[in-house]
């Protein structure tokens, strides 16, 4: 079965510091990888996704993630965070079932807390 592990439930960081949010996955089939962000009291929105090609994926708001197949990881990074980046970040794996349905499995989330 496919699964996603986000080891850090909370990551505190100071404004303008770099940050890395870790995501590891386990899968017996070919999967696609996503990062979604949830700002306070809002729904989730796509940050970036890896489908194929270059292993370094750039997303919105200056975030990027690197797909590492050998380490089964898809860590999210930003070189300099802002207060407005305070949110919960979800890593997810996706694959297609025989029915054509997209199965999406989320990690438990990492809360990024940016302080001045």
């Amino acid at each position, binding site marked *: 079965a496919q699964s*996603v592990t986000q080891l850090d*439930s909370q990551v505190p960081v100071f404004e303008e510091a770099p940050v890395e949010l870790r995501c590891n996955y386990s899968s017996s089939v070919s*999967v*696609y990888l*996503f990062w*979604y962000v949830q700002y306070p*009291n*809002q*729904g*989730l*929105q*796509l940050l970036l*996704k890896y*489908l194929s090609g270059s292993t370094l994926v750039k997303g919105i708001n200056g975030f990027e993630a690197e797909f590492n197949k050998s380490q089964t990881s898809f860590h999210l990074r930003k070189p300099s965070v802002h207060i407005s980046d305070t949110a919960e970040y*979800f890593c997810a794996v*996706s*694959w*297609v079932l025989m*029915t*054509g*349905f*997209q*199965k*999406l499995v*989320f*990690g*438990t*989330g990492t809360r990024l807390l940016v302080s001045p």
Partner: protein
Amino acid sequence: NAGVTQTPKFRVLKTGQSMTLLCAQDMNHEYMYWYRQDPGMGLRLIHYSVGEGTTAKGEVPDGYNVSRLKKQNFLLGLESAAPSQTSVYFCAGSETIIEAGGKETQYFGPGTRLLVL
């Protein structure tokens, strides 16, 4: 475009009461989903729909029913609410099946906070 909207935003129920959560989308999504979000558990799929008139069970369907009579609406019903159903419920829709294959981005509504006493 409003995107994906959900009503109500917040609701308090007593055990045993029933209610319906409404999800509406104006993005022409074929696929629609209902998730619940609980602390430390991420999002879990309750039910989903692959088109008007079709629905299927997700990971945690017990205690919920759904209907998709119109393409733009996906309803989630709780027939007899239980405290274990206290959660935040999210509806989502995904791009048309032309771009199928697991690559789709899902677009989420703002959520409904439900408290069952």
